[in-house]
C-alpha cells in the first residue's frame, strides 16, 4: 500500500465518518432528551436521499405522500390520547401543525418540483419535507408512552423502523437512486482530488455541529432541551414541557438524518432500505460515546469511517462484518471502564 492509496483511504474514511458523525449526534440527542434508542434514524437518511434524487428528475417525491400520512396519524393520535382536555385553541394549533403544514409543504412541492430546482434549493426543499416527520413520529409512537422503560421504548423504535422501511418500499419502490452532486467543482491537492461533494460533506458537518452547539447554549429552546436531557423531572418542575423537548429533539434528528441522506445521495446509490445499515454505523459511534458525549461520538464516527474504508480495501467482502464486530471491543471496554448495572434511584 503506497502513500497515495493511504491518503485516499483516509480521505474516503473521513468523508463517510463525517456523515456517521451527524447521525451519531442525532442519536445521542434523541436518547438523552427522550430515552429513545432511535433505530429509525437511518430511515430519514434513505428518505432524504431518495427525495433529493426524485427532485433532481423533476418528479414529486413519494415522501410528500408520506408526510401527509404522518401528519394525519399524528393529529389522530393526539386527538385520541388527549380528547379529555381538548379545547378549541389546542385543536386549532394541532390542526395547523399536523394538517395544514404538510398540506402547504405538499402544495409547494407540487409547484416547485417540475421547475428542476438548482441542487442547493432541492436540498433545502428535501429538508423542509422531511423535518416535520420527526415531531409527527414522536407524537404517534413515543409521546403516548414517554414514561415507559428504555427497553419498551427501544422495542417500539424497532417497530417504527419496520413500518418506516416498509413505507419506504411502498412510496419509493425497490429501485435504487443516485442524486446529482451539489457542485461539479474539483480541487486537486497533491496526489488527492477533493470533489465539491466531499468538500460539501466536510463543510455541512462542521456547520451543523457549530449550529447545534450554538442552539444548545443560546436560544431558550436549546437550553430547555439540555435541561430535559440532564433531568427530566427537574426540567418539568421548572415548567419545561417534556413533550415539546421531545418534539424538538425528533425534529432535529429528522433534519440531521435528511441532511446526511442529501450528502450521501450523490456519492452512493441509495435504496429504500439502505438507511438501516448507515444508521447503525452512527449507532456504533454513539455507543462509543456512551450515548451521552457529543464530541466523543463525533470522533468515534470518524474512527468508524476509517475502519470501514481500510476494511473495504483489505477485505472488501468482509467489510460489514469488520465494521459491526467493532462493537465487541467497544462493549468490553465500556464494561470494564464503567461496568455498573445500577439504573435505580
Amino acid at each position, binding site marked *: 500500500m503506497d502513500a497515495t492509496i493511504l491518503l485516499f483511504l483516509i480521505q474516503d474514511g473521513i468523508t463517510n465518518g463525517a456523515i456517521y458523525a451527524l447521525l451519531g449526534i442525532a442519536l445521542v440527542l434523541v436518547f438523552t432528551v427522550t430515552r429513545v*434508542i432511535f*433505530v429509525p434514524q437511518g430511515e430519514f437518511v434513505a428518505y432524504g436521499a431518495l427525495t433529493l434524487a426524485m427532485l433532481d428528475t423533476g418528479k414529486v417525491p413519494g415522501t410528500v405522500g408520506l408526510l401527509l400520512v404522518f401528519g394525519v396519524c399524528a393529529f389522530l393520535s393526539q386527538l385520541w390520547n388527549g380528547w379529555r382536555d381538548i379545547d378549541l385553541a389546542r385543536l386549532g394549533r394541532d390542526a395547523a401543525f399536523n394538517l395544514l403544514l404538510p398540506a402547504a409543504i405538499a402544495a409547494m412541492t407540487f409547484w416547485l418540483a417540475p421547475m428542476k430546482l438548482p441542487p442547493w434549493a432541492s436540498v433545502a426543499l428535501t429538508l423542509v419535507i422531511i423535518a416535520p416527520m420527526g415531531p409527527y413520529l414522536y407524537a*404517534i*409512537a413515543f409521546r*403516548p*408512552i414517554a414514561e*415507559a*422503560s*428504555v*427497553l*419498551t421504548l*427501544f*422495542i*417500539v423504535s*424497532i*417497530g*417504527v*423502523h*419496520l*413500518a*418506516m*422501511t*416498509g*413505507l419506504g*418500499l*411502498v412510496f419509493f419502490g425497490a429501485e435504487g437512486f443516485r442524486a446529482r452532486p451539489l457542485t461539479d467543482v474539483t480541487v486537486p491537492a497533491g496526489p488527492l482530488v477533493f470533489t465539491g461533494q466531499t468538500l460539501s460533506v466536510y463543510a455541512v458537518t462542521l456547520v451543523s455541529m457549530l449550529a447545534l452547539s450554538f442552539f444548545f447554549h443560546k436560544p431558550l429552546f436549546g437550553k430547555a432541551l439540555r435541561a430535559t436531557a440532564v433531568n427530566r423531572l427537574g426540567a418539568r418542575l421548572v415548567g419545561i414541557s417534556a413533550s415539546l423537548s421531545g418534539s424538538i429533539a425528533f425534529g432535529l434528528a429528522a433534519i440531521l438524518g435528511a441532511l446526511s441522506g442529501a450528502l450521501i445521495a450523490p456519492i452512493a446509490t441509495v435504496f429504500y432500505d439502505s438507511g438501516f*445499515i448507515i444508521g*447503525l454505523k452512527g*449507532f*456504533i459511534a454513539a*455507543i462509543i460515546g456512551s*450515548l451521552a458525549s457529543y464530541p466523543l461520538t463525533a470522533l468515534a464516527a470518524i474512527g468508524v469511517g476509517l475502519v470501514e474504508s481500510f476494511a473495504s480495501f483489505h477485505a472488501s*467482502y*468482509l467489510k*460489514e*462484518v469488520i*465494521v*459491526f*464486530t*467493532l*462493537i*465487541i471491543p467497544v*462493549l*468490553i471496554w*465500556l*464494561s470494564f471502564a464503567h*461496568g*455498573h*448495572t*445500577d*439504573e*435505580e*434511584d
Partner: protein
Amino acid sequence: MADLLKNMMNPRSMIFWLAAVALAVVPLIPAVPVYWVTLLDNIGLAALVVIGLVLLTGVGGMTSFGQATFCGFGAYATALLTTQYGVSPWLTLFVALAVTLAVALALGFITVRLSGHYLPLGTIAWGIAIYYLFGKLEILGRNDGITGIPPLSVAGYQLSDSRSVFYVIWAFVLAACVATSNLLDSRMGRAIRALRGGTRAAEAFGVDTARVKLIVFVYAALLASVSGWLYAHVQRAVTPTPFGINASIEYLFMAVAGGTGHVVAAIFGSTLVILLKEALQRILPVLLGHTANWEPVVFGAVLVLILQKWPGGLWMFVERLLPQSLAPKITADAAPLPVRSLPARGSNLLSLERVRKAFQGLVAVNDVDLSVRSGDIVALIGPNGAGKSTTFNLASGLLPLTAGTVSFDGVRIDGEAPRRIAARGMARTFQHVKVLPDMSVLDNVALGAHLRGKAGVLSATFRLDRAEEARIMADAARQIERVGLKDQMLLQAGSLALGQLRILEIARALCLDPQLLLLDEPAAGLRHFEKQQLARLLSQLRDEGMSILLVEHDMGFVMGLTDHIVVLDFGMRIAAGSPEEIRANPAVIEAYLGASA
C-alpha cells in the same frame, strides 16, 4: 409420582395437558391439509425461540435482537457436520448446543454488566456481523447456503414430511415449556424474576445478578439453537436469510404480542404472529394490489400499538378465561433449614471505626464510630441530611468507604460486595421499599432465603430441587407468620399498604437467617397504630436474640425501644448513649430544636 399426578389435577395444568393431547391428534386426522400441519410445525419452531425470549425479556427485563443468529448457529452447525462429515443429526445437536453456549457466554459476559440497553444494541450489531459472515464464508456455501441436509430419523424411520416431524418439534416445545416453568418456580427462578426489580435488592440478598443475567441469556440462546437445528432438518437446506435481523425482530414481536411472564404466552404469541403473517399474505394483495408489500408496515404498526395499549401482551385476554392456579402448597413439616448460631449476647457484633465518606468535596460521613453489641437494638438518629442513610449504606457495602474500617463479628468487611456481606449474616431493608409488586408476598419473602439454598438451573428444570424448595417455602411461611402477615401471604405484594410492605421487607430479611438486621427508616410513613405494632415486633425479635441497627427519624419510636442511640449531625457523631442520656444531652437538643430550646 403421586405429587406429579396431584399437580396434573390442578385445573390449569389439566387444561394445558388436554390442549397438548388435542394438538397431538391434529396431524393424525387425514382431513387436515398438509398446509395446516406445516403451519403448526412453523409455530412450534418459532415458539422454541420465543419461550427463551419471554424468559429473557418478560421475566428478566433484558432483551436481544440476536435470537435468529443463535438459530443460525444451530442450523449451520448441523448442516455442515451432516453434509460434509456424515455425522448423525442427533449427535450434531450437542455440537450445535456447545457452539451456541460458547458464543452466548462470551457475548453475554461482556454485556450483562452494562446497563440494560447495551445488550440489545450489542446483539443487533453483532447479529448483523454474523449474518454477513454466514453469507460470505466459502465453507458455509456463501449466499447459496448448504443443501442436502438429511432428515431426522427415529429408529430407522425417516421423518421427512410435515406430519411426522410435527411430533419431534412439539416434543421439544413441550419439554421447553415444562423445563422453563419448572425453572421459574424455583430458587433460581425467583432470582431471575427479581432482576426486574433492579439489582440492589437482589444483590442485598446474595443474588449474583450478573451471573443470573448471563444464565438467562445463555438459556434463551440454547433454546434458539435447538430451534435452528430442527429447522435445518425440516427444511433440509439452510441459507443466511432466516437468521438475519428481520427474523430476530419477528421473534421479539411474537414475544411482545403474546405477553410477558408466561411460558404458554410464548406459544400464543408465535401462533398469533404466524397466523397474522399468513392472513396478511392473502388479504393485503387483494386490498391494496400486488405491487407493494405492506406486510412490514402492518407488523411495525401492530407492534407499536400493542406496546402502547397492552404492554403486558395479548395473553392476558386468554388468562382471564382460565381458572386460577392453585395456591402453592406449604409443607409445614418440611425439615427446617439450618440456622446460624447467634453470637454470645453482649459481644461486639458490628463495629464501624472512623468511617468516612466523601462525595467529591462533600464529606457526608465524617470519621464516625459506631458499634452494635449482640442482642441490642441500636438506633442511628439525626436531622435530615445528617448522613444516617449514608453510614448505613457503608455498613452494608452498598457504598465504598473513603476511609475507616467496618468489621462484622470480628472480621473486616469493608470493601466487600453487598452479597458477600449478606452471606455473613447481615440482612437489610430499604428506605424506599424494594419488592416485586407482581410476585406474591410468599415469593418475595422466599427470595430472602436465596443464600440458604443451593439448587441451580439444572436441578430446577428437572425438579430435583423439591425437597430444598419445600424447606425454603416452609421457612418463608414461618417468617411471614412471625411478623404477622399470615393473612396476606398469597396476595400480590403490589396490593399491600406501605406499612405492610415495610413488614414484608423485615420478613424477607429474617428469611436470610441473619445475626444482624439493618432497618432503614422502618417506621417512615407508618400510622401510629402500625408503629406500635412494629415496635412490638422488634422487641420480640430482640428477645429471641436478634441484633438490630436502625436508622430513624421518629424520636418517640426510638426512645421507647432502643438500648443504645448514636446521634449524627452534618456527618459528625455528636452524641452516643442510652435513650435517657440522649434525651438530656444539650448538643442533641440543639441539633434537633435549635440553640434557644
